[in-house]
């Protein structure tokens, strides 16, 4: 009998979180992500893990950060309006170098927008939403099996790099019920290394590109964690030399390892003369479109970004050596297209297919754009 079962995308996220060892969820209900909270409210207590519904998204992320510092692997899930509320605490988590995973199921925006329809309009906000210079990792699966694997990868990356990771979904893939074979426990790779003993209280002291040697609270060391700019002990300071050093340390912690963090999938790219750049639900339609176009003889391929930030600049520039046409397909008024423009040389022709009215692109619509662009 087949091991494939039907699950909703949100439930796949929840199951992947459980498999990754997540043991604390604090959240606030919001369409279209509430199923994640509901599923974990049932499953976590069965395993002795912690679940709490807080009074708003701000307090949800606050509780997550407190729990992460106390040794838990934490998750929260929200959508546009809640994600906007979480920005201040997201900055605190980056500043204090705390692992946590935030799921943002994108819906029509801005503001209350269209809660029950998809969009891909938080791409730039995921990178720049919180104030100040901050590194961030943003992942975005498209297919059901990717929802599982990217959720586990989100936890692994956040633990490995001591930084929040944002896992984007959209209303379509989160709410769709699809068949998936969940991987066996032994096949799931969970990042295990964690600092439990430190040499001294210099918890942020390290070389460029390294992780901070910081323990969690209650390990026997009276550590100080502060949202103010701080020295290697974590004590507040406004000294310019220290501030400069800390900024570089935090940024390079991620960008030094971006090759390891960046992940993407390619379809029909070997002999492609045109490339579609897409992600999430749009990538799914684009894949079908590419297959249709290929049958009609058009040499088009699909570059599906799984890591949105850091942006796969090097990979794209490699492909731009041979491919001279790129079509960005996204459900917004133009966000990632600016990144594609930024990294592509002048001799590459750029086109876009954009829409932000809550209706995903059909494969035929993308095929029409491909045909127009190939003229």
């Amino acid at each position, binding site marked *: 009998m087949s091991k494939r079962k039907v699950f909703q995308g949100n439930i796949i996220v929840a199951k992947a979180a459980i498999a990754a060892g997540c043991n604390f969820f604090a959240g606030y209900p919001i369409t279209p992500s509430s199923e994640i909270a509901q599923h974990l409210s049932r499953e976590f207590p*069965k395993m002795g893990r912690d679940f709490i519904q*807080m009074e708003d998204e*701000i307090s949800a992320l*606050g509780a997550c950060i*407190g729990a992460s*510092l*106390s040794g838990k692997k934490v998750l929260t899930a929200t959508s546009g309006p809640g994600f906007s509320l979480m920005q201040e605490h997201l900055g605190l988590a980056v500043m204090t170098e705390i692992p946590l995973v935030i799921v943002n199921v994108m819906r029509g925006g801005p503001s209350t927008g269209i809660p029950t329809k998809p969009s891909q309009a938080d791409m730039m906000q995921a990178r720049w939403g919180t104030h100040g210079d901050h590194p961030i990792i943003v992942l975005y699966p498209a297919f059901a099996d990717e929802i599982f694997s990217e959720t586990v990868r989100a936890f692994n990356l956040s633990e490995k790099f001591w930084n929040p990771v944002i896992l984007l979904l959209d209303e379509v893939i989160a709410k769709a019920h699809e068949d998936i074979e969940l991987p066996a426990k032994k096949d799931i790779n969970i990042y295990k290394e964690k600092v439990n003993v430190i040499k001294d209280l210099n918890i942020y002291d390290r070389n460029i590109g390294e992780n901070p040697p910081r323990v969690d609270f*209650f390990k026997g060391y009276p*550590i100080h964690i502060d*949202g103010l700019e701080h020295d290697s002990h974590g004590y507040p300071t406004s000294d310019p030399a220290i501030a400069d050093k800390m900024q570089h340390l935090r940024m390079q912690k991620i960008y030094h390892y971006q090759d390891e963090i960046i992940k993407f999938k390619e379809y029909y790219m070997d002999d492609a003369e045109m490339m579609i750049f897409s992600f999430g639900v749009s990538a799914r339609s684009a894949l079908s479109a590419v297959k249709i176009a290929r049958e009609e003889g058009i040499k088009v391929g699909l570059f599906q970004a799984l890591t949105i930030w850091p942006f796969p600049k090097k990979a794209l520039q490699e492909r731009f050596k041979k491919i001279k046409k790129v079509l960005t397909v996204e459900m917004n008024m133009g966000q990632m297209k600016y990144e594609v423009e930024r990294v592509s040389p002048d001799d590459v022709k750029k086109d876009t297919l954009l829409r932000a009215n809550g209706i995903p692109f059909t494969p035929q619509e993308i095929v029409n754009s491909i045909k127009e662009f190939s003229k």
Partner: protein
Amino acid sequence: MNKYEKYIRYQTFPTPWCPGCGDGVVLKAIAMAFSDLDLDPNDIIVIAGIGCSGRMPTFFNTNTLHTTHGRALTFATGVKLARPEKMVVVISGDGDAMAIGGNHLIHAARRNIGIKMILINNGVYGMTGGQVSPLTPQKFITETTPYGNIEPKFHPAELMIAARATFVARETVNRTVQLKEVIKKSLQHNGFSVVEAISNCHINLGRKNKMKNPVNMTKWIASRTVTKEQYEKLAPEDRAHKYPVGILQEDTARYEYSELYHKHIIPAAKEAAKKEAAARNNKK
């Protein structure tokens, strides 16, 4: 070194507060309370938000966390749920507790989560230069009420009593022994506890209102301090400007939140899991 100095992080001294600021007095009272109870510094966490009171965790030699404005209680909720056996102390000022953080305050009280809150009420937003706060007395001049404050102030302790917080007390920075005792009792309380410490900001509030010296401002606080019993005997019209001190509410009957989660929710869920597993086996 006196026993209470064990809880002080001298490496971060001197404190940034103005000469005579009540924050330092509260810092000492808390350290003395920790010391009286013989607590292990590694089992304590002190969390604060933004403001002059928000700088306090830096000076405790325990686990310490300096968070965003008004949200210290939310971080404390996460810590307490994750490590229910630890001592979680939150220090708040006017804005943290009663303005931006007001919502989290009533939810923490409602949940009766075992967080010990010290609310330092000095009637102003001191750190940012002396703007009006929800705890500024009426008619006072501040940076944002140059013609006098027309907004009535909150009474934090009474608000907490109405929110059914299970331990509510008020003391002032003049009555240092009683302040320490009341903090000690709040640390021992099983559930959410609030100690409102009336403090002096003579530099940013007192100076605009004829009390620029800490001795004068603390004397002004003393003139408005009455015990709970004296307050009961006052006529309603005389009560308006008085601060009744002492333990104002103590309820030991309610369950504490994390206790309830571990003693009720987790066993109930495990029972349900067993039943589901049995049902699955029967189907096969």
